[in-house]
């Protein structure tokens, strides 16, 4: 007991190998919500788990924590197979997406609850300071004695976050930890929490539906879609080489424009022919284009690589203004092409445009992404 009291945070075994899941599958009724998921997170590493809602992020976290048992596959924590270990003994800290705050306890009692559980009711030295520090970091220091009923959604989320961060677990799972906070606080906490987690010796998973948030908080990013891992890689990997259309569409604000079309080559030059457009491909893509000349392809273009032009500009694609959003430092114009597709353009300055007015746009020399017409995966 005395040993526990002197060493806060209490660790009885050091995670050696972090977290590893292999071949994890889970079926609810006829729905296979998690299909053959394998991933590993090293101690001190933050894995951003990015996926649209319904992709299975929460189910994956719950399986790692032991709240759901997988149909197939294994889960290792600190080198130990935890398949048969009870949830309470896995020492996984899970921040629930729904917060799961105890309504009858104060904010402070909520946060210290996991520490009390591990130390049989008695709190170690230094706990109060640690909690105070967290409350200050999360800007809820003035709410310590309130009950969750008296808190707003964002405040509740921060209490739940504090309750997860105060623990010293074998793995930390944050299920959409900052989704309900305002933009300013999100910016602050992304960096602050990442900093804290990097100094720890437990692996962390940070789940989010927001691709850019994933890129900014993760040492590596795992993309989950419809229960399957689409891609795992560094943020640079994901951004520069998205493995599939699904991945590409998750990262980017606004998401990448994707057009369906065909590849044609004329002598040395390769062209992408889509509805009403013919685009000359840069040499790097031309080589791939030759191999798949007869197949349908998808061309991905980030909104920043498109530019608005006058009606009738040479090589301009005619379109109509569909919407025009000003964001201050940039603006996003949505155009409707003659074929009925919506194309988004991100540009630096805000230009006054009449809705429905005819304009045209140019495919600049920016990067293009070519995806296979059948599988949707990046052609290499």
């Amino acid at each position, binding site marked *: 007991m005395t040993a526990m009291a002197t060493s806060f945070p209490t660790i009885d075994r050091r995670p050696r190998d972090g977290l590893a899941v292999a071949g994890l599958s889970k079926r609810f009724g006829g729905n296979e919500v998690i299909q053959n998921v394998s991933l590993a997170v090293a101690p001190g590493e933050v894995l951003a788990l990015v996926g649209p809602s319904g992709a299975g992020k929460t189910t994956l976290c719950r399986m790692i924590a032991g709240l759901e048992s997988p149909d197939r596959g294994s889960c290792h924590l600190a080198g130990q197979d935890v398949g048969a270990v009870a949830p309470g003994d896995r020492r996984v800290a899970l921040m629930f997406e*729904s917060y799961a705050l105890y309504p009858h306890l104060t904010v402070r009692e909520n946060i210290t609850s996991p520490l009390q*559980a*591990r130390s049989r009711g008695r709190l170690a030295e230094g706990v109060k300071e640690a909690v105070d520090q967290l409350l200050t970091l999360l800007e809820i220091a003035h709410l310590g004695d309130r009950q969750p009923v008296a808190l707003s959604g964002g405040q509740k989320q921060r209490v739940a976050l504090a309750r997860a961060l105060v623990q010293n677990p074998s793995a930390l799972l944050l299920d959409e930890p900052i989704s309900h906070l305002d933009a300013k606080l999100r910016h602050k906490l992304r960096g602050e929490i990442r900093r804290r987690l990097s100094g720890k010796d437990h692996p962390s998973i940070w789940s989010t539906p927001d691709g850019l948030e994933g890129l900014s908080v993760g040492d590596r990013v795992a993309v989950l879609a419809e229960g399957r891992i689409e891609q795992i890689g560094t943020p640079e990997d994901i951004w520069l080489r998205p493995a599939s259309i699904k991945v590409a569409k998750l990262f980017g604000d606004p998401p990448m424009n994707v057009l369906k079309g065909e590849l044609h080559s004329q002598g040395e030059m390769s062209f992408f022919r889509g509805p009403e457009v013919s685009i000359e491909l840069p040499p790097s893509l031309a080589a791939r284009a030759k191999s798949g000349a007869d197949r349908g392809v998808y061309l991905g273009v980030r909104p920043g690589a498109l530019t608005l032009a006058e009606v009738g500009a040479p090589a301009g694609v005619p379109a109509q203004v569909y919407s025009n959003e000003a964001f201050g430092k940039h603006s996003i114009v949505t155009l409707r092409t003659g074929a009925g597709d919506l194309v988004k353009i991100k540009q630096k300055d805000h230009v006054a445009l009449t809705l429905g007015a005819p304009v045209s746009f140019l495919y600049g020399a920016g990067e293009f992404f070519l995806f296979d017409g059948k599988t949707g995966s990046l052609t290499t």
Partner: protein
Amino acid sequence: MNNSTPLGTFFRTAIAVICALTILFPVIWMVSMMFKPADVMFARPTQFFFSPTLANFDYVIAQGFLSNLVTSLLLGVISTAMVVVIGTPAAYAFARFEMKKKDDLFLFILASRMAPPVCLVIPFYLIYAKIGLLDTFVGLSLAYMTFNLSFYVWVLRSFCRDLPVELEEAAILEGWSKPQVFWRVVFPLLRNGIVATSVLCFIFAWNEFLFAFMLGGSSVQTLPVAIPKLITAQGVRWGEVAVVGVVSLAPVLAVVVLLQRHIVRGLTMGAVKG
């Protein structure tokens, strides 16, 4: 409702007062009867003003009604306490745990309450006669317990199901043991439901007549069973009946007033998502 004129307020208040008086009139009448001397009890025209007497109370106490009162109170409290102790874990188990034939079992529990009491009192009587539980305190409190238990489990199960299961999951992950999760998380959140439901159980036991009449006797006699003692060969002693009636009302009113906060919360829980 902010456009109320003084006149409108007056009319609304008047209507509320009239409604309240209409509903409360029998009770007020009974309270006035408590203090009425026998000779003006049914005087025509009705005398609303009379010199009050405590003679009715003297007779009631002399007849030993105090012991009936204690019996009723003890029976209500003890049978309800047993119901809470046994029923709360049962309701929680029905709400949360996986078990075979759960729905059938639950329907069976409910069915035991659906049968008319008069059907059950005969087997109860025969069994109690065989094992010597007739006219015993234990026998009657067991009977009330079995009767209330099904109702209690049935109602409390829905309170349990309204609790978000993630609270318990969070506590489990934190490392609390199952009993600790129940005491730290489930029980405090169920408290309003437990209070509201057990008050109903107490009121049922307090008001019950048939079982108390059939299974009780001279040594265990509850208040409702004792009232007919006031129908004497010389006539019905109305003043004394009124005294016993008001006394029967008092504990129920006291419980409701004292626990109002819990009961209202309990009865409206689930109506609005909080």
